[in-house]
């Protein structure tokens, strides 16, 4: 028994030494394509968001490659599962790097994103995250966001309420243990005019199925701000449709997107008015968004169609565009360029007035010095009161 133990341990040790050995080497030296790495939840409760990003990013990569890549060099997407957990990120990140990752979409969600931003700054890897909307995700100069930061959404929503509901009472329904919801909520509250009174109620991961108590609390409100994702929102609306007044307005952020395309849920059965502040509308009938939706649905179905994917699609094109602009501007981006070198090039582009036009999630997208995105948030009316 002990011998076997010893042998096994020794074997493990030797194996470790062989795999791990190596002096300062460039993992990108053998690349034959530009490798884009991303870490996101592909299993677990948040899998739908990771899946949307994976599909849409792959769609963009395929399109770019079909059109000849970047001066003949193809792109490759590597996506790893982090189960929406921060402690999976270090393994994924290092594996991605060792697989030759040169640029990244960061992570899909904020929880693991915090880990990713710290790891990537060590190696100077550029990332543009489609949907990790935490305020501090772009804190370092190598990180950028395609989505609105949570805090900004909270501020914009608060402005809207200040303008339209001054002196009135509004309802507030959020998920207390969720970064996205809590992040928007905090900034919303901080920027809310003193004259607006709020009736607050929350839920958390432990119960996302029965909102009777919360609905009861909110029953006197005619305007309810809900910075939550569309799945619980749809459950809330279904349960509240008879219990809340017909003239009530639901106001959500980009997390609402997808609520009107979700399979089996008929938004028209909800009598109340549903609006959202977002950069993408999955029911768009014109422009780039429409084109994207058609392509996405044709390939992956409308199940996972949401703003995560739309944003990821834009991210890939934004990175592609920035690299193209750099090459056009005389810079060299060989296929074996290291992540750090590419990061410097991309940083100077993103800080140098790089603008993305005609994207799915907005026109004339730029980034500020901190890495936050500048684009117009549109208030969509998903459904009028009926």
């Amino acid at each position, binding site marked *: 028994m002990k011998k076997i133990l010893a042998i096994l341990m020794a074997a493990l040790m030797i194996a470790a030494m062989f795999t791990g050995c190596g002096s300062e080497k460039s993992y990108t030296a053998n690349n034959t394509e530009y490798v884009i790495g991303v870490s996101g939840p*592909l*299993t*677990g*409760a948040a*899998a*739908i968001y*990771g*899946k949307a990003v994976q599909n849409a990013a792959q769609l963009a990569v395929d399109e770019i490659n079909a059109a000849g890549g970047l001066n003949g060099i193809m792109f490759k997407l590597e996506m790893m599962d982090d189960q929406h957990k921060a402690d999976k990120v270090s393994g994924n990140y290092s594996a991605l790097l060792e697989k030759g990752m040169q640029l990244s979409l960061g992570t899909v969600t904020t929880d693991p994103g915090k880990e990713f931003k710290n790891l990537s700054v060590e190696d100077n890897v550029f990332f543009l995250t489609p949907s990790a909307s935490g305020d501090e995700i772009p804190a370092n100069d190598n990180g950028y966001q395609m989505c609105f930061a949570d805090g900004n959404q909270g501020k914009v929503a608060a402005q809207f309420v200040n303008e339209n509901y001054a002196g009135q009472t509004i309802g507030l329904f959020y998920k*207390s*243990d969720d970064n996205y919801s809590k992040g928007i909520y905090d900034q919303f509250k901080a920027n809310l005019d003193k004259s607006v009174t709020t009736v*607050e*109620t*929350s*839920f*958390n*991961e*432990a*119960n*996302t*199925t*029965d909102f*009777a*108590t*919360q609905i*009861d*609390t909110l*029953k006197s409100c005619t305007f309810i701000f809900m910075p939550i994702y569309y*799945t619980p929102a*749809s*459950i809330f609306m*279904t*349960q509240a449709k*008879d*219990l809340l007044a017909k003239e009530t307005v639901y106001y959500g952020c980009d997390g609402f997107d997808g609520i009107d395309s*979700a*399979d*089996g*849920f*008929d938004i028209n059965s909800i009598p109340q008015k549903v609006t959202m502040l977002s950069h993408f509308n999955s029911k768009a009938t014109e422009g780039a968004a429409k084109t994207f939706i058609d392509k996405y649905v044709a390939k992956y179905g409308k*199940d*996972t169609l949401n703003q995560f994917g739309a944003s990821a699609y834009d991210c890939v094109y934004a990175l592609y565009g920035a690299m193209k602009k750099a090459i056009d501007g005389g810079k060299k981006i060989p296929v074996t360029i290291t992540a750090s070198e590419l990061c410097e090039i991309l940083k100077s582009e993103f800080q140098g007035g790089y603008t993305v036009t005609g994207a799915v999630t907005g026109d004339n997208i730029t980034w500020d010095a901190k890495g936050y995105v500048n684009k117009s948030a549109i208030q969509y009316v998903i459904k009028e009161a009926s």
Partner: protein
Amino acid sequence: MEVILSTLINGLSLGGIYAMIALGYTMVYGIAKMLNFAHGDIIMVGGYVIFVVMATGNPLLAVAVAVIACVILGITIERVAYRPLRGASPLAVLITAIGVSYLLQSLAQIIFGSAPKMVTVYEFGSVQFLGATVQVASLVTMAVTVVVMAVLTLFVKYTRLGRAMIAVSEDRDAAQLMGINVNAIITITFAIGSSLAALAGLFYLMKAPNVSFTMGAMPGIKAFTAAVIGGIGSIPGAMLGGILLGVVESISYKITAIAPYTDAIEFSILIIILLVRPTGFLGKKRREKV
């Protein structure tokens, strides 16, 4: 006053589902003496079956198929994963149960995808009751749970099969010697537990028309908590535990300041109850003969 009343009613409605799941939990635990961590995932399977069959538009058919499917699934799981371990360490069974839970979840994700499916089984609407608005679905849930509890209690007490179940739960070896087919009894127990899970899946969908592959995990843990509060193995206890949990949760969500701490509060209450009554409200004390 009205606030208190409506909070209580909401609590009851919330507790109804927990009680329903806890009934299945406690049946399996009481007789097969194992913590079936996969119970919550059988609910999930029930939900998906209802979702699939609802394509025909017939709720009754959907429920019937779901119950049958869950019963078959429960029996299969018992046969394949638990029966080989009869007589082995209970911890080994606990681990396979967890394995089965992961297995069902990932299979569901592979088959049905990551996106939650929405399905409306039947719309009951709501009624005014003592000044509070109550969803009829909640009332139905409560009513069915009470009926199921009563039927189970009577079944266990007064039928041959039920008494055989008690015998198996008290002393498996002695029951075997008395000519009771222990394997058959445990299979039947799993069948009952799984059909209850299918029903729980139905009520879950009536409340929240949303099926996802992770939907069983949290209700499973909550129901486990409820079953323990009531005393594992006790059928009325499961009901009591479920209702208590629902009411506590409802009150806690009602008070804005403590709402974020709801799970902490629920679990603290569980600990306190167990410290006062180490075998839950209605659990039997097993005294070790010295």
